[in-house]
């Protein structure tokens, strides 16, 4: 596999290999705490912090961690940062900490973080590991923001608590309830599928310009 450039390491996690929308990792927090935008931001920031910190430490110590115990060591490092994030959130923003509840601690078992350590941070220098972590964390945050905005606008008629539509708006309550989380992510993935499908159609037509007038026969 060819060596990736620093720019690629940073940008890859943001969209092309977005942890939530493409790789479908870290879905538990993505669905659970995206019912309002402030919650999404807080969870995104907490996960970003844990990802950066643990990638940094794992990459720094990769030569000293024996292969047999590497998963346990990674989990230990991740759990430490999550505990720290938990305490900091409880001390600084207790209201949001209460809303996020158990899901802050569940960042530990977010497969996205362990996946990045195993696949990347444990094999690359610290600088690259940080870039990769930053890209993945940003991608995670973007996905959460997308879902959070969608759900809060439809389910509460507001963004960040500021009412958008006034008092006459009857909110689509299910959007801030659990089914809404499933529907939102499902809708986003369906949109991606539709978009990819359209692209495949049009590119197919471009490949065979003779005799295929529309995309119908491409399927």
């Amino acid at each position, binding site marked *: 596999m060819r060596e990736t450039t620093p720019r690629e390491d940073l940008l890859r996690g943001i969209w092309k290999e977005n942890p939530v929308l493409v790789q479908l990792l870290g879905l538990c927090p993505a669905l659970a705490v995206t019912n309002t935008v402030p919650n999404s931001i807080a969870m995104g920031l907490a996960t970003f912090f844990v990802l950066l910190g643990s990638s940094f430490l794992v990459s720094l110590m990769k030569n000293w961690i*024996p*292969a047999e115990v590497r998963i346990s*060591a990674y989990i*230990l490092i991740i759990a*430490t940062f999550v*505990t720290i994030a938990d*305490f*900091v959130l409880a001390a600084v923003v207790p209201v949001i900490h209460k809303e996020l509840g158990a899901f802050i601690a569940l960042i530990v078992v977010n497969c996205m973080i362990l996946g990045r350590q195993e696949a990347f941070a444990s094999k690359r220098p610290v600088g690259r590991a940080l870039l990769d972590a930053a890209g993945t964390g940003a991608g995670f945050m973007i996905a959460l923001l997308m879902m959070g905005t969608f759900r809060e606008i439809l389910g*509460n008629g507001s963004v960040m608590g500021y009412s958008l539509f006034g008092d006459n708006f009857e909110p689509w309550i299910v959007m801030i309830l659990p089914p809404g989380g499933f529907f939102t992510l499902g809708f986003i993935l369906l949109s991606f599928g539709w978009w990819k499908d359209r692209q495949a159609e049009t590119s197919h037509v471009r490949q065979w310009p003779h005799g295929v007038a529309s995309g119908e026969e491409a399927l």
Partner: protein
Amino acid sequence: MKELPTVQADGGSSDSGPPRAPQVASVKLMATLAVAGAVAGLLIVLVFQWADPQIQAHRAAALRAALLEVLSGPASYRSLYVSPAGLSMTPPAGVDTVTAEKVYIGYDDAGDVVGYAVTGGEPGFQDIIQLIFGYDAGQGRLLGMMVLESKETPGLGDKIFKDLDFVAEFQGVTAPIKGVKLGAGTGADNEVDMITGATISSRTVIDIINHRLEALGSALEEHVPEPPPPPSASSAEEPPAGDEGEERS
């Protein structure tokens, strides 16, 4: 596919270099994990030392806010522990102060007792509803009610704290409370109008209060109140634990 390190029968790994002596390998594994664990523990303890005072302060502030609400702004308060023998300032033997059942007694500026604040929780429509209410034991009336924790349905069940008229109904109502459907009440002192479309949530709130008063009412009436805390102790004599055992860190 990446070649997996093979595992020898003695537990060592042979993916690279000459085979190592098994005892050294195990010791090295243990040592690495132990060192990592120690460093991790140290980091956590440091952050905990920094964060804990603030977390306790938040809890105390939340409790103070709740008491302010349900006891109509007392000047000071005390925590009392509940035991089968009654209420006392000292915790009963062998009980953890954090999880012990407590009631709070509020005093006004003149040092007179305003009332008692009692917490309670029971399963509602979705999950457990936790609330605190103020009670004037002498007159047998409630002074106020505040929902502390609720996961009821937004738009329906959450009216138990969003509908301020419903919350205000609990001020001055006599115990035991009777919930009546809107429009069917006779205007009696102990009636509370339930929320249309959120019958179960409203009924749970009323049940919590009634059940708590059944359990504690006589203890509250018979209790001889202690004098208010001296002004220098600010408004609490100990950092309280907030909602009963709900939040532990």
